């Protein structure tokens, strides 16, 4: 599994396309059967993943998530918990990922694993 993280509009989707996945093979914010999940942060709005659902995520070919922790601590408690959950979930996923890529201005920077 390739884990892609990056800020809003950092080039995550374009990179998913470059990896060879078209729109039809991408689930958006829901845990479906497509090989790619974009929008992990939205999936986590419903709370932490069960172990089974986490394993489904690990079995994807690509998971992309917006990095949400690099700003001001939100005033709203629910937003703070969500932000914490997104960060912790991504850390667990990166442990399991073959490759971790961080998008910087459209450039895929490989943090773990090797570039194909």
């Amino acid at each position, binding site marked *: 599994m390739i884990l892609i993280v990056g800020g809003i509009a950092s080039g995550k989707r374009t990179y998913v396309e470059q990896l060879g996945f078209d729109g039809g093979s991408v689930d958006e914010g829901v845990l479906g059967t497509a090989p790619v999940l974009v929008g992990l942060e939205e999936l986590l709005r419903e709370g932490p993943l069960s172990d089974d659902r986490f394993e489904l995520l690990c079995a994807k070919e690509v998971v992309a998530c917006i990095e949400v922790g690099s700003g001001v601590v939100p005033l709203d408690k629910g937003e703070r918990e969500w932000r914490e959950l997104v*960060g912790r979930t991504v*850390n667990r*996923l990166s442990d399991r990922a073959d490759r971790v890529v961080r998008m910087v201005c459209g450039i895929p920077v490989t943090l773990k694993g090797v570039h194909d």
Partner: protein
Amino acid sequence: MIALVTGGAASGKSAYAEQLACDLSPVRTYLATMAPGGEEAQTRIDRHRAQRAGGHFATIERTGTLLGEAPTPQAASGVLLLDDVGNLVSNALFGADGSVADAGMVLDRLDAEFAQLAGAYAHVVVVGNEVGSDGVFFTDENGTWVRLVGSLCCRIAARSDMVVEVVAGVPYAAKGTLR
């Protein structure tokens, strides 16, 4: 050596910084910057305490300043872990009475205090914070805090031998090389 470990919220930066401190020396001091206040702060403090439990850190607490009693010669020969810049800045910038200090003066003071503190220990590991990238531009005291955290991290980075950003639990070196 001086190392700055930065990252966003819940990026894994504290866990990495603690591991680095453990690798640097068996003699470890933890400088706590967080004034307990409320349930969430306590949860966070408890989690960090549990993370450090295996590492045998002596703890000193400083609120709003880095200066205090000089370390013992033994402590000075080891590593100091400072976690984190954001809390340090909060406590230095915001008074309990709701007052806000002059940001430029706080920056210069904390920078000078850090230089003195860092000189007193063989190794210092600092946990910084990435807080300037959420696309919201605060014009109030939150904006002052964001700028001050960023500026102080830049000052500390300039004094550091190694600067590491932790992203998704994975560290990479922005300055120097990972050890």
